[in-house]
């Protein structure tokens, strides 16, 4: 699915909060992964 096409207005209040929480947590995960891989890059270069 295309994330940019998600219609947030179609979500119920509790769903909206739940999804936002999941997205926020995934963003944290992505930031962590980025830092880890960045370190790997430095070690390999």
């Amino acid at each position, binding site marked *: *699915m295309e*994330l*940019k096409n*998600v*219609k*947030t*207005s*179609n*979500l*119920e*209040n*509790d*769903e*909206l*909060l*739940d*999804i*936002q929480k*999941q*997205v*926020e947590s*995934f*963003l944290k*995960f*992505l*930031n962590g*992964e*980025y830092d880890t*891989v*960045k370190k*790997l*890059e430095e070690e*390999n*270069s």
Partner: protein
Amino acid sequence: MKELVENIEKQITTDKEVISVLPRNGIKAIKTLLKTISDMTEKYEKLNEKLLKEIETRYSELTTVEENTEIPQIEQEVLKYNIAEKNTDMRSSFEKMGLDRVIYNVNGYYKSNLERLNKEIIFSVKQFEKVGIKLTAEDFCISEYAKKYMEVLLREAYDGDINSEAVKNQFEKVYWECSEVVSHLYVNIRYIYDKYESQIDRFYNEKAQEILKGLSLTVEGVEEKKAELIKKKNQIEETDNKIILDKFYTGSLNINDYKEDNYKKIYLELTDKDVTQLSDSEKNEIDENIDKLNTNLTEYAKYLEYKFLVEQVLETRQELLKTAEANKNKKDKKVKKTQYELLKEEIKKLQSEIFKLNAKIEKPNRGFFERKKAEEKKDSIAILQRNNLILDLKKTYMQLDEEIINQNILQDLDETSSLFDVLKFASSYYGYMAKAMIKNNEDITDKEIGEKAETIRKFINFSNFTVINHVNISDTKDLSIIIKDKYKLLGMQISKENFEEDSIEDLIRKVKIINNYNNIQKSKFSIKDLEFIMNVKEMLKK
């Protein structure tokens, strides 16, 4: 929209997997992985922004609630009728002026401080002014000490600082000349009231007539109109959007109590009914009873806080009735003067003796001429005699206060009086109320007495009574049993045990939850809306 949620969740899981399976060996693979993470982060940040914007819009829409303009209007009306009631009720002018509180606080000043004493004295001066009597230091003529102090206090009060250095210095100076100066001020305020009593009574009578004429109501009509307005205000407030929201904001209501499961559970506990199985009409009937029970319990809980006052009055009344009964048989045929009349006579006699002595006491400064030692000695003796008489007068005034209350207990209260009548009676006399509070809790401070007295008077003046105004003092049943029996008949599952000291709070809490839940349904909010608002509020804190 379950499907959309599932899709987003699936997408997150897939993307997570992509990140974990992409190779991380070799600089080229690492660079590709970094690019993938960055692209993904950008996409999710955009989604997050969109989600947050949607949350903000919804939160803002939900929490934008207009203040109900009708409530302050009704409050103004209530105040208007309350002032009318206070000016037309049965209390004496002394209580209407608020001198009962002044006198109590001036008498007990040693437990308080000079600032409070000055505040009370100036309050009394202002109250006299309100009824058309402008006081000057000359009116504080009971002794040269009272007059000297009031000269400075009134001057400084006029300049706006009743606690200035000049006032403090003057108090210190006068206090060392006569340590009973505050008793002199006490007696002086009472003397001024006695002097102008008929003029003050006339002022209040005329004012009462004018108010009632202006409102085209009787005294009872004013009371009824006020009660009606308070009831209307309470009803509006129960379902008012802003008030409901504020209760959650301030933490006076907790969203977890209003989860549907909890509501159903408590509903079943209180009514023995499964709320989901009730027809609309059945539910309406039960909810109406819960609403009434809630009002009754709130009143009952407040009443319990002040019950000691009612008990004190009823105890005094029993003693007075016993004494009256015993004296009935002893009475000789000759009509004797009442204790009240005797005390009034004694006060007049003492006042006259004090002023006779004051006339004899010469002024201390007589220009350039030295006074003869013998004359000074004569003055000192007269001052001493006069000071003793002032203290006697103070004692007599205090006896008179007690006598007035005893007399009024017998006159104003009978077997048909309600618990409300008794509570209202007690709250009308500040000194009596204060003494009962001290009897109930000997550690209470004067400041706490003042605050509590105000709360009691507010409770009396601004409540819509439905229980204690219907229960007579002759009723032998306990108030809790009366409430319990009524609602038991209506099918509520409440027992005597629910009213026990350690259970009553829980019962009140549960009834409140059901009633608030029902009222929320009548507002613009659903429980889900409120859950959302409170969750977002928590989010915003982080």
